[in-house]
């Protein structure tokens, strides 16, 4: 995982789960290759990042597509509904296009219920049909961050 505020609770839960191993990445594409290696060794994993990290992954995704490796990426959206930071908008706006262009199936949830449903479906589909799938978690679910409010 690469940390994101939207994933903070999930990361805490993963760290508390003794059956899971949490690997702190310094850049998102490392997770694509890490989980490719884990799959070669018979293990399953899930990759957590925010949408701004998708661009870092583009070329590494060729590993998942050319080898038909299962990969599930949970992506919390930035540059999405109600965004405050202009620099988040270009990558946020391009996230789905970039993933699709690399052959990654894209699903999206904009409510808590939809996220749960899409993640369950993506896990089932990725590992049964050996392909990369990303689930985008919309900013309506995680809430847009406003740094002006954070400073008060």
């Amino acid at each position: 995982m690469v940390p994101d505020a939207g994933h903070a609770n999930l990361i805490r839960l993963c760290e508390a789960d003794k059956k899971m191993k949490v690997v702190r990445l310094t850049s998102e594409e490392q997770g694509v290759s890490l989980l490719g290696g884990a799959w070669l060794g018979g293990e399953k994993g899930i990759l957590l990042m925010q949408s701004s990290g998708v661009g870092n992954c583009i070329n590494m995704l060729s590993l998942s597509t050319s080898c038909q490796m299962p990969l599930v990426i949970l992506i919390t959206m930035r540059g999405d509904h109600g965004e405050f930071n202009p620099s988040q908008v270009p990558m946020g706006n391009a996230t789905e296009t970039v993933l699709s262009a690399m052959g990654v199936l894209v699903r999206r949830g904009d409510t808590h219920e939809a996220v749960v449903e899409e993640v369950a479906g993506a896990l089932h589909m990725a590992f049964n049909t050996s392909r990369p799938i990303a689930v985008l978690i919309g900013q309506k679910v995680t809430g847009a961050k406003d740094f002006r409010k954070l400073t008060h």
Partner: protein
Amino acid sequence: MKKILQRREVVNFLLHERDDLLVVAGLGAPAWDITAAGDHPLSFPLWGAMGGAAMIGLGLAMAQPKRNVLVVTGDGEMLMGLGSLAVIGAHKPANLSIVVLDNEHYGETGMQKTVTGLGVDLVGMAKSAGLAQSMLVANKSDLENLRNEIYKKGKARSGTLFGQVKVGSDKLPLVLPPRDGVYLKNRFRIALLGTEKALA
């Protein structure tokens, strides 16, 4: 003048009687080198994913803690994935070895210089990332030591091993591994996990 090591001889020496070693090779010359040493179902040569070889090795080593994993890659590939040294340094699985064949050039793109030829010290970077057992290999005796460490098992290992092997930059005949990634993945998983689990 001291004789510089030759990459194919280095890889042949490291992979001769390879025990139950799992091998990942970075794209380009390292993939040709491991193939020249004898293609093997438990070898995973990369055709792309530049910068990802060491992380594939980490994932494999964490998934298979009882097996030794060797990543053979080049200086250009390692330099693209330097951040992975930091991630590996935080975990240091003792069953993982990373060997960088450092010819100080990008061989596949016309032999342009890499920064290792301009003073960048990969062993120093690996050590700083927490890989205490990092060694520069420049001669046959260093290489024998590297091989001994790679094949040590379990508690005889103290952490992830990192070796930067200085090799010549001669142009060598291409010895290409299979190109089909699905085939390479399936043969590796079948050889490691058995057909039933690999194709479940």
